[in-house]
């Protein structure tokens, strides 16, 4: 039916669908308010855990040894920025990546699958919600950290950091599509998602610089866009080494294109395979 609609009508329809998906996601989160509190507190708890570990090991928030690895003594600012940007990775993997499984669990997958809109429209709605939600959580985390811990991250340079984060988000959407495909193929993926989430946190410079990792692991991190977004954001704020803003912008745009194309292709393949095998609705 969509094929015989005029293009502008079709685009309008898809945009409406995106907004309705966004509305649905907001409604769902309102239905479970404890989630908002959880998302607000969880990243902060992980910062505090590392803060206390730092206090136990070096007794302050500066470390000379850390400077030899990261180019800055201030490990606390380093981990707060890492944690704030990692929120975007987590929400992309858990949000878009697990969207299908969530709808399946709620018994609404079939209704969404047969709706006369593109699947990517549905994912864009979820992605839009995830992006807005992540911005809110990251902002609150930086605010809490600036109030409670001995750091000040509410500075004007954060505008540029937000720009880099914006570029990172598109690459993460590609990662989300990839995960959606994996969910279609392997079903029960919650533990696996958690593992990937933790692994990404472990092998990227979220809480420590790449130089403390074994060389082969650090090499893997070079293929993850978060590595460049973190290096660019920290460097721009004067926390660690830095090349130039243009370098990070170009790298992130390349990641955006490659990951969205690759993620979309994997999703397409997984959907076709699941349809052939009659797996779409099975648990």
């Amino acid at each position, binding site marked *: 039916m969509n094929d015989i609609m005029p293009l502008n009508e079709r685009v309008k329809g898809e945009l409406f669908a995106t907004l309705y998906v966004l509305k649905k996601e907001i409604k769902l989160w309102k239905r*479970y308010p*404890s*989630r908002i*509190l*959880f998302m607000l*507190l*969880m990243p902060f*708890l*992980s910062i*505090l*855990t*590392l803060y*206390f*570990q*730092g*206090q*136990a*090991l*070096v*007794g302050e928030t500066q*470390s*000379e*040894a*850390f400077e*030899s*690895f*990261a180019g800055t003594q201030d*490990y606390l600012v380093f*981990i707060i920025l890492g944690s704030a940007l990692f929120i975007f990775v987590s929400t992309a993997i858990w949000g878009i990546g697990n969207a299908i499984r969530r709808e399946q*669990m*709620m018994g609404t997958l079939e209704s969404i699958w047969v709706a006369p809109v593109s699947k990517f429209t549905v994912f864009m709605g979820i992605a839009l919600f995830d992006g807005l939600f992540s911005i809110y959580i990251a902002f609150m985390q930086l605010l809490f950290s600036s109030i409670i811990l001995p750091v000040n991250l509410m500075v004007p340079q954060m505008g540029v950091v937000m720009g880099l984060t914006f570029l990172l988000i598109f690459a993460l959407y590609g990662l989300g599509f990839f995960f959606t495909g994996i969910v279609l193929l*392997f*079903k*029960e*993926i919650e*533990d*696996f998602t*958690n*593992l990937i989430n*933790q*692994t990404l*946190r*472990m092998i990227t410079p979220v*809480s*420590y*610089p790449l130089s*403390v*990792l074994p060389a082969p692991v650090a090499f893997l991190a070079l293929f993850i866009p978060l590595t460049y977004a973190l290096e660019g954001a920290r460097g721009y704020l004067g926390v660690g080494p830095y090349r130039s803003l243009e370098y990070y912008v170009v790298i992130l745009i390349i990641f955006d294109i490659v990951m969205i194309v690759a993620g979309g292709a994997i999703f397409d393949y997984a959907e076709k395979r699941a349809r052939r095998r009659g797996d779409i609705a099975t*648990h």
Partner: protein
Amino acid sequence: MQRNGPEGGEILQRTKKIGAKEHLVVVLSIAKYELLISNIRYPLRVVSRFLGPLVWVVPFLLFGKAILGGSTSETLYELTGISHMPTFILVGTIITLVSFNMLWLMAFAIRLESFRGTFESIYACPVSKFDFFLGKLVASTIWSSFYIIGLLVLGVMFLDVQLAWSRAPDAIIIMILLFFAMFGFGLILAGTILVYKESHTILHFVDGLFSLIVPMAYPLEVLPIAIQKISLSLPMTQAVLAARNVLIRDESLLMQGTSIAILSCYIFILIPLGYVFYNYMERKAKKRGVLHKY
């Protein structure tokens, strides 16, 4: 003649009382179901279960390495008498990981069945819910044994972790006490989730909160006094403290009187309390009609 209960429903004929052997069969069947069927059906879960502990522990070690530039810390020595950071962290994280694993599998037991579509069948089975929970806990303990062995091998081979191996039986007794102490805790969480749903949120939050206040990667002394007091009342904290004393400081189990007393309190007080609480929440869920809901 049909007899009616206090809420008007028909009182069903009681099933025959079963003995300890039958209870054991139920517990082991549930454990087998949880270990084999639910994992083999989803092979990715097996990968996650084996690698999960590794990616959980390693970031603490790497962060420690990044701020120390090595593996020994004078500050840690002043606070605890232990200077080798990986040994300190590994013992703490193993005990905490095991207790979280027990808590997760027990508390999430009902919700998981609900998602799998098997809740009604299990609920209608003429077996005690507590056998069901105990079966989940046994499964979690078997998984945890793999974690413990794997992480210890990693520690000894790559991190130069040195433990008082002659104290291993003492550490096993601490783990057994922790196993039963977590049963009461798990019953309370399972009851809460039965009524309020949203198990992921509650469990992730509890997990995150305990990760912060249990002295897993740092000693209690760095926490604010009020949090130290709360932490000391938790079974995981007592198990971590006792395990460190036994395995790192080579102290005997008999010297861990406070920890054993607190863990025993959890066993003798929290299990009956958890039992009563779970039954109360189950009745509440039935009254509200939310037992089977998502």
